[in-house]
């Protein structure tokens, strides 16, 4: 296989990943690494470097559309980015120390957890209990537009959310993914944000988190131009196209299919990691 063929195959695969990621809301980044390593035999470190680039591209591209709707909360995002960027630096450091087998096994478990989360319906938390006093001091409580006008929300468990975000950052830096699954856990379940606010704020943060580890990866020589270029352009085109057709698609069936694909990839990553084939 020469460069031209490989570029077209990777570009096509990344387009599909970006499309499914946008349609299902799971993000395309999570399947790029298994696609490159399991299907094309690319070294795990190159694959993670390319995936980080794709994650920054989709996050920044989509954030431009989201911010105008007024759902995202830049204060919550910026405060939690202290945790995610520090975690991402730690994760990028770990990626240089841990063996690729160990990274593959961790990756597999994160994939399986993402698949499990995608099978559960999204819950919207109401604000019936006292907000965290820290959230008041940090000016996090805000409002968002609903069909009945602006609705107030309060933020809970800031400390737990901050800790979980640190973990999301570590996984992002170690595995080259957006860690959407852990961010949902932190913002929906711990901080009890309305899910429109948490999804858009999380998307807003993903690019900054990925940039924190991408610098380290670039300096280590893990970002290869020939590989990252088709991944970035493919995922970007796929996710932009996905956002356009979102209204017409049968999202529920797609989520199930994509969830199963992620589950199978997770099991295969763990198997390959344990068998030393990665």
């Amino acid at each position, binding site marked *: *296989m020469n460069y031209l063929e490989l570029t077209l195959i990777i570009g096509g695969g990344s387009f599909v990943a970006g499309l499914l990621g946008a349609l299902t809301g799971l993000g395309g980044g999570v399947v790029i690494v298994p696609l490159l390593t399991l299907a094309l035999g690319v070294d795990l470190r190159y694959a993670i470097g390319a995936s980080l680039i794709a994650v920054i591209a989709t996050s920044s591209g989509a954030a431009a559309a989201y911010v105008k709707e007024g759902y995202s909360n830049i204060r919550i995002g910026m405060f939690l980015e202290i945790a995610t960027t520090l975690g991402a630096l730690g994760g990028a450091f770990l990626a240089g120390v841990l063996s690729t087998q160990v990274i593959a096994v961790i990756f597999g478990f994160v994939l399986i957890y993402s698949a499990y989360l995608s099978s559960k319906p999204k819950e919207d938390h109401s604000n019936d209990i006292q907000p965290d006093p820290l959230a008041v001091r940090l000016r996090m409580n805000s409002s968002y537009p609903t069909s009945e006008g602006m609705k107030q929300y309060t933020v809970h468990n800031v400390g737990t959310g901050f800790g979980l975000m640190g973990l999301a950052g570590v996984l992002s830096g170690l595995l080259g993914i957006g860690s959407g699954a852990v961010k949902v856990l932190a913002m929906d379940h711990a901080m009890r944000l309305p899910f429109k606010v948490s999804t858009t704020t999380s998307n807003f943060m993903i690019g900054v988190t990925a940039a924190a580890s991408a610098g380290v990866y670039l300096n280590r020589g893990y970002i290869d131009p020939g590989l990252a270029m088709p991944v970035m352009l493919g995922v970007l085109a796929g996710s932009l196209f996905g956002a356009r057709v979102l209204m017409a698609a049968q999202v529920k069936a797609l989520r199930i299919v994509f969830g199963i694909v992620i589950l199978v990839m997770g099991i295969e990553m763990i198997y390959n990691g344990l068998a030393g084939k990665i």
Partner: protein
Amino acid sequence: MEEKNFRNKSSVSPESSKWTDLRVEIIIGNLLRIGVIIAATVAFLGGVFFLISHGIEKPNYHFFNSEPSPLRSVGGVISEAISLHSSGIIQLGLLLLILTPIARVAFSIFAFLEEKDHLYVIVTLIVLTFLLFSLSGGKL
């Protein structure tokens, strides 16, 4: 003292503060969009040149042997791109993409300064420091 200021600040009417937030978010949205478009265009052009000159060569990605040193640092990537090496141009596109969210964070400092929200100026400076530390390869 700091805390007193801060409390006064939060008693500002929500509408005026919301308006500023929204305006900031729209500028940030456009900044991100422009950054991504420029980065993707540069990477695409570099990719076309790369495939014209190396398209029929056989890549080896099965074994890891780190990128050559010019493609591993900000200065190296820029000089490779200026000498019009195709892989340097792609790498410049990727670097511009990495810089896009960093520019967003840097811009937020000015936005929080304008809102006199000193707490968040500090928060944002911390995040920016981590990002620049990473980009410099830990040599800050």
